[in-house]
């Protein structure tokens, strides 16, 4: 039998708070983390709203002189990792270091730093570009810095699959542990691109909500009046361990990763396949990998970004996988509150699914005042619900048509 993989720690940095507790408290209370963007002047942009992480001080997590060497997404990853390790109690020592890996992805990487250095290049010339520009902004520096700071000497990898990035990171980490490359892995994703170029680029795609006058109501998955996603930022990191390894050290075993499914739409650069084909195969893949029946699933943390096309396709896909059971299970989108953390979304949402399993509570989809007629599932509208959840899925779908789904359950 293949090695079983459990979750022993969670660390979250989100627009609802710095830490798992404030984030979980926020989503269960139905709080929106969306507000007017404060990090830069958005007056010339069609979009003025975002889900920023508030009150984050890099100096709380790294020495002051090191701060400038890394862009914000790396700081987020380090902060979330520190909290995840603390909650798992995993100590990385000379004895176990080579058996502990790191798989942290980012969808876009250090775009704010790229912008700042490009401005220096244009205004002051190439000799003024910082020697820290490249290491501060490349996507795998989250995994790099985390290994340097924690001493984890096992496999060191970074995923980059747009909004599926951190679901893929967690899935890859699962496979590495199953295969025997490592006994424990720090896995997840981080993103911090609340800056001009990403906001302009996503705006030009008409991907973002322009509900500028009502930020808290802008992210409204499956609602008739949804008009795009809200750009968010943060990090979601989890500690995954081989079951016996976790038991031996008396770790807090929060949940077990049961299955991982992946697929590609092979269809369009940004639009999902209209029949939900790719999403269906990702979910079915996760069920098959975990030897699960569709009736086993109680709850899906949906990709649910609040885009007109994406939300309907996900509904179609859930029906395609689950048939009649689609109307019995709960489907909710925490993006209605956190905004869309892009490459960090899967990590944040995986962490929240673990909290749902542990606490027996499903966070709501807020702002779902009136769903489309086609969107007729139980989206847990407005308020959180207590429920006995044994198995949950978390979906992530990314530009390029890349899909990932993870199945998580309580350890039996």
């Amino acid at each position: 039998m293949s090695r079983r993989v459990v979750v022993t720690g969670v660390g979250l940095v989100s627009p609802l708070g710095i830490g798992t507790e404030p984030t979980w408290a926020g989503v269960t209370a139905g709080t929106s983390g969306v507000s007017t963007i404060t990090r830069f002047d958005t007056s010339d942009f069609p979009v003025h709203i975002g889900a920023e992480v508030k009150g984050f001080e890099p100096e709380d997590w790294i020495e002051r002189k090191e701060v400038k060497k890394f862009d914000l997404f790396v700081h987020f990853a380090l902060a979330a990792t520190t909290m995840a390790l603390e909650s798992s109690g995993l100590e990385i020592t000379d004895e176990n270091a080579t058996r502990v890996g790191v798989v942290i992805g980012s969808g876009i990487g250090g775009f704010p730093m790229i912008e700042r250095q490009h401005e220096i290049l244009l205004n002051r010339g190439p000799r003024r570009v910082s020697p820290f520009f490249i290491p501060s902004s490349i996507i795998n520096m989250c995994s790099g810095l985390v290994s340097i700071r924690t001493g984890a000497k096992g496999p060191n990898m970074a995923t980059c699959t747009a909004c599926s990035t951190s679901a893929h990171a967690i899935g890859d980490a699962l496979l590495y542990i199953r295969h025997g490359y490592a006994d424990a892995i720090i896995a997840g994703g981080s993103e911090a691109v609340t800056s001009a170029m990403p906001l302009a680029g996503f705006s030009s795609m008409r991907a973002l909500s322009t509900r500028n006058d009502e930020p808290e109501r802008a992210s409204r998955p499956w609602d008739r009046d949804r008009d795009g996603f809200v750009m968010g930022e943060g990090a979601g990191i989890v500690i995954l361990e081989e079951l016996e390894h976790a038991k031996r050290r008396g770790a807090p075993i929060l949940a077990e990763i049961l299955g991982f499914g992946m697929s590609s739409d092979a269809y369009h650069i940004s639009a999902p396949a209209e029949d939900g084909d790719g999403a269906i195969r990702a979910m079915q893949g996760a069920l098959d990998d975990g030897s699960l029946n569709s009736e086993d699933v109680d709850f899906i943390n949906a990709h649910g970004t609040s885009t007109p096309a994406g939300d309907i396709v996900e509904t179609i896909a859930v029906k395609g996988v689950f048939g009649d059971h689609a109307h019995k299970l709960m489907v909710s989108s925490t993006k209605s509150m956190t905004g869309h953390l892009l490459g960090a979304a899967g990590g944040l949402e995986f962490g929240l699914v673990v909290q749902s399993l542990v606490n027996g509570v499903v966070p709501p989809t807020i702002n779902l005042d009136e769903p489309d007629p086609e969107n007729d599932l139980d989206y847990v509208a407005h308020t959180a619900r207590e429920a006995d959840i044994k198995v949950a899925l978390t979906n992530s779908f990314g530009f390029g048509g890349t899909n990932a789904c993870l199945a998580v359950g309580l350890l039996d």
Partner: protein
Amino acid sequence: MDVEAKVKEIIVQQLGVDAEKVTADASFVDDLGADSLDVVELVMAFEEEFGVEIPDEAAEKIATVKDANEFLKQNPAG
């Protein structure tokens, strides 16, 4: 502000070290905890603050506080 005081201030700021550690003989790498990239950035800060250009061949020879002071005294902004 004289050259030495200004150099010291830049080093304290760039490398995040205590001012009393920035003695004339202090080596950026051996005594002040800098790595090779820190030194590159430090030299860029000297160029910026003193309004001078430090060619790579000269920059490679700036390894201590004294080296920096001497270069910047001998090559004032033109």
